[in-house]
């Protein structure tokens, strides 16, 4: 099984802005990898380096044994990307969009024509095949671009924020499609929706100001997180004395206690005895993300 490996990737842009700081990791090139991080964390920079569009300032990366710098030509045979700000070209139809991309990849006209129709069908947008892109809704336009790259033979697909701007239902539809695609290709996606990474990704990486602060499966992230459970209490509930926990109170007065397994079960028993209404869940990616990123923000504020 192939691997995507980054070794000490650093990127400093020409204006001296450091976008990536010594990023190293390795994941298997199968299934779905989700990269999360705040605006400006460096997700797009990393995805552009891996997809051979941008040179790193230092460090190396390889995908399935092919170096992104010295073996770019061979690597480009098997990758495809939908960039963050890619748009379906206004004066073309979805079918023309997919077809032209396939022609660029060197398919013969007839073959490109047929694969384009199949791909649009797979994404359930074949009814729009011959309507100008400019007349389609934002969600359909996004799907056109995804149909474009997935129509090709590329088995490593980069998607930079594929579901931004989609309504919750379209987003879920796209998740189903991506899940299906992830069965026989490797999908590397970035997202701001933590639920999306949680639902889709086999492995998740968290970028924070150019540094990779965490990487693993969801359960590995949970395991390495200090707290594994989250207990939520209604407003005005009495919070007992806690061990090894962290309490946050939301604006609406709800209290969240993040804690470890033993303490979580002790509290659950206590609340049941006292008849306090509560909910208990394993920590979500949301909790982990806010914990990691929040801590950093707090440290900065204190400093």
């Amino acid at each position, binding site marked *: 099984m192939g691997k995507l490996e980054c070794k000490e990737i650093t990127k400093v842009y020409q204006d001296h802005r450091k976008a990536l700081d010594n990023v190293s990791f390795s994941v298997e090139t199968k299934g779905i990898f989700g990269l999360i991080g705040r605006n400006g964390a460096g997700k797009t920079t990393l995805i*552009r380096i891996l997809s051979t569009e941008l040179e790193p300032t230092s460090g190396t990366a390889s995908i399935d044994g092919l170096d992104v710098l010295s073996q770019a030509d061979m690597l*480009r045979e098997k990758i495809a990307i939908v960039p963050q700000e*890619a*748009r379906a070209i206004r004066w073309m139809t979805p079918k023309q969009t997919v077809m032209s991309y396939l*022609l*660029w990849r*060197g398919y013969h006209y007839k073959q490109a024509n047929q694969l384009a129709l199949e791909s649009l069908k797979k994404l359930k947008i074949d009814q729009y095949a011959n309507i100008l892109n400019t007349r389609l809704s934002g969600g359909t336009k996004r799907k056109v671009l995804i149909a474009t790259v997935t129509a090709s033979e590329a088995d490593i697909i980069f998607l930079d924020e594929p579901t931004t701007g989609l309504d919750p239902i379209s987003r879920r539809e796209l998740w189903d499609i991506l899940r299906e695609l992830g069965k026989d290709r490797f999908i590397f996606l970035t997202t701001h929706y933590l639920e999306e990474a949680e639902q889709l990704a086999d492995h998740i990486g968290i970028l924070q100001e150019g540094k990779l602060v965490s990487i693993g499966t969801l359960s590995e992230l949970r395991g390495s997180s200090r707290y594994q459970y989250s207990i939520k209490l209604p407003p005005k509930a009495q919070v007992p004395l806690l061990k090894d926990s962290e309490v946050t109170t939301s604006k609406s007065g709800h209290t969240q206690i993040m804690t470890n397994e033993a303490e979580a079960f002790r509290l659950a028993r206590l609340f049941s005895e006292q008849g306090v209404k509560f909910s208990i869940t394993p920590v979500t990616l949301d909790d982990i993300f806010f914990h990691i990123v929040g801590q950093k923000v707090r440290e900065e504020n204190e400093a």
Partner: protein
Amino acid sequence: MKRSKLSQILAGVLVNAIYEMKNYPIVLISTIISPLSLLLVITFVSSGALFGTAIEGGLIMIFFSSGIALQSDLSHLKNDFKLQDMIVSSPTSSRLYMGGMALAEIVYSVPALVILIVLAGIYLHPSLLQIAILSIVLLLMFAVSVAIGFMLSTFSSDVVQSYAFSRLLSLLFATLPPVYYPITYVPSPFNYLAYLSPTTYAAEIMHSATGYLNISTNMLILDWVVLLVVCAVILFIAIRKTRWREV
């Protein structure tokens, strides 16, 4: 898989010319109008005397404007649609991508070209030698303008990316210099200014080849040398400066 280079060039021609012409036929009219309108103006003002040079001017304008249009099209596709990013991360080489895009600009001008070529055939009756000279000059013009187009498209500044900038270039190099009429019509010292534009040299060669301009053999040789050198230098810079992968 075995990839077809022909398909890879065709893709550029389809996206940058044929699909747009097919989906928005109105663009056909505008591509015809700009080279032909000046032709008409010059012809009427000269009571028909300059019809021949004006045809040649129209041809120069088409080939020179192609490269300039290439610059704005490439920038537009790269910056507003991120098409170039998608192509860089694909098996398409920069040469085939750029080649297809450049060819598209000629395809885009085919309607106007057909009209001018028919007019030239009827009115100029060119000999085979004249046809060869005109063709070579026009191809050189095309090469120069395509090289300028590439080079500019890789500088991503807002100025370069605006259509106003391309129109300015077109005006400076294809409309203002004496390409629609012989340089002898331009009074001193403006004729010296005209020599700052490579299109002036191309026009001199064409006008003299068809007998509208009398210049010495030395001058003619100079015209060819300048044209070839400019072409080589700009192509060289373009190849050196054009970046496929960004830094």
